[in-house]
């Protein structure tokens, strides 16, 4: 394999990995605060794409306004889901909430079929994002450069929010102990709602980037990215934001390189993610950025 070709593979891997990373942050953040694996994250991601689609195609808004509206609506949806499905169960065993999360996931999938129809739709094409650029012999969409930047910016914004603001302090307090946090005057409900709002905003930003790169939306499209980003979060050490990003990149670049070097294993591409998950759980259950090394969110 020539060096140029390898660079092209690597570019594709980074582009896919940063998308995984972006969605994995939302997963890991909600887990960090609530110890809840929000299985509906993939579906919230899917809904954000539909919001973006309808903004542009039905209400004919310019794409940037439509995307901002979509992000807002997705945040609202995330908070509503939290109110309806998780809050009443806050004192229940964790497994109950997890089952509820799976329920929400199915609910949203089927709701999308009823509301938007089962026929796949084409996500609006934003020239600014999808234009093809070329450096040397490596060509890629402009998006490929934008996504990692967005991911890193969001990473630092989140770290700042969690470590340096009052809301962040409340989040950290809630993640340690609900009761004590409440006794210290932290509004636990509000903090959790904000957490879900931010988690959903991250899902929406990831969703819009995903839609620009893979412009096809369908009610069940959230399942695979949801699972893969969950794996990315676990690989990086669930609950750890930096870990989620590392996990996302490992998964994305790993998938691309697997096919690049072993073309016969094309059909096992999804299996790669799951084998990685099993291996991590067996040999390093706390993930790469294990809990003890770095601070949880």
């Amino acid at each position, binding site marked *: 394999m020539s060096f140029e*070709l390898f660079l*092209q*593979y690597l570019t*594709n891997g980074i582009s*896919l990995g940063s998308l995984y990373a972006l969605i994995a942050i939302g997963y890991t953040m909600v887990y960090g605060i609530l110890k809840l694996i929000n299985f509906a994250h993939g579906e919230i991601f899917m809904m954000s794409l539909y919001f973006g689609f309808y903004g542009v195609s039905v209400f004919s808004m310019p794409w940037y306004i439509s995307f901002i509206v979509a992000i807002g609506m997705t945040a609202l949806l995330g908070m509503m889901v939290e*109110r*309806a*499905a998780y*809050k*009443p169960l806050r004192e229940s065993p964790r497994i109950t909430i997890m089952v509820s999360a799976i*329920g929400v996931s*199915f*609910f949203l999938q*089927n*709701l999308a*079929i*009823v509301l938007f*129809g*089962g*026929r*796949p*739709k*084409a996500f609006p*094409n934003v020239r600014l994002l*999808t234009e*093809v650029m*070329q450096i040397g012999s490596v*060509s*890629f*969409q402009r998006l490929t450069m934008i996504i990692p930047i967005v991911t890193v910016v969001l990473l630092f914004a989140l770290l700042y929010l969690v470590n340096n603001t009052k809301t962040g302090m409340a989040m950290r307090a809630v993640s340690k102990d609900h009761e004590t946090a409440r006794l210290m005057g932290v509004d636990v409900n509000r903090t959790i709602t904000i957490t879900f709002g931010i988690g959903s905003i991250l899902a929406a930003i990831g969703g819009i980037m995903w839609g620009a790169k*893979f*412009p*096809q939306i*369908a*009610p*069940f499209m959230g399942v*695979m990215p949801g699972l893969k980003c969950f794996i990315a979060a676990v690989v990086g050490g669930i609950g750890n934001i930096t870990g989620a990003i590392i996990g996302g990149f490992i998964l994305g670049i790993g*998938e*691309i390189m697997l*096919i*690049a070097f072993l*073309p016969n294993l*094309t*059909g096992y*591409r*999804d299996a790669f993610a799951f084998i990685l998950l099993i291996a991590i759980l067996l040999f390093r259950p706390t993930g790469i950025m294990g809990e003890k090394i770095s601070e949880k969110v």
Partner: protein
Amino acid sequence: MKKYLSIFMVMLLVLSIGLVGCSSQAPADTPAEENGEEATEPSADDDVIRIGVFQPITGANAAGGELEVEGVRLANELYPEVLGKKVELVIVDNRSDVQEAASAANRLIERDKVSAIIGSWGSGFSMAAGDAVRDNQIPAVAASATNPLVTQGNDYYFRVCFIDPFQGVVMANYAYNNLGARKAAIVREISNDYAVGLARFFEDAFIELTGDPDSVVAIADYQTGDQDFTSQLLNVNAQNPDVIFAPGNFTESALVIRQAKEQGIDIPFIGGDTWETPEFIEIGQEHVEGIVFSTFFTSETPITSESETFLAEYRKRYNREPAAVTALGYDAYILILDAIERAGVVDSVKIRDEIAKTQGFEGAAGIISLDENGDAVKSAVIKTVTDGKFIYMDTIEPF
């Protein structure tokens, strides 16, 4: 107060799940009397003949299924009666899923007691229904399923379209003669029976044309629902093929071609009949300009008087040009109706015998004559994409 609110929210959630559970089987635009969920007692009602339509109405292939259902419905509106009885369509969704296709066919036969079945878009789904159709002796007519295995060894399955061995040869000829290709690569949807079959027939035909057993230089696979194909495409491109044959579902295919162009891979793409859906162009945008594929029918050269009727009525209702599979869905319906008329009774075995005898039947998408396997022998049409539209190029007669 807050507690009641949360209880209310949970109730709402549960209730809506219940609602969705019922209606996910039937898409919102299916009138109640047609979707079988409402028709609780498929009584021995003698004034009604039920024809089952099983199609992917949700899921990855939904656009294809919907186009075919459009044709069946139009035919039903134009010809609502046979033998003095009303014909009722029972439409079920196979959710673009092979397992679901088998049970959807069983549901049509056992619960809805249909006399004949139309469908499905997608050879894999039709093959999955094969056993149910044969064991229960209910004739089925596929509109656009092109894999030869759909009808092979099954006396109860028929089709109104050509089969993939023909389509594969047509595209191999096109690649060899019109594009001057001597090296071809194949990118196929490995989890799709249709794509795998068509890819094999293309490969055989291309190797025969070039006389070089190594003329297919690369075969790359992907799974239904995959979204990133960049690695496969780079692998294929490294072998420097003159043409890439990429049979598969329209959404994935459009993404494949789009990503190829974005990677700077400038090799012509050719494909099969599944590409002719509006979504293919919407997703592929300017990247699918100039691709070439074979299909069944073009509205630009109507073949029979039935074509004229079909085209006029379709344009009146939908205000656009029909896709080939829509015409085939229409044909499947009128073919079954004609067989019922000839049989004179509503008896599924007799209907089957009449369908098998079909010769020189005038359908919207051409003259249908079924061979001993139950396959129609018809010409293929070659189309391309220019300025965001499907454009007719050529007609290839059966060999």
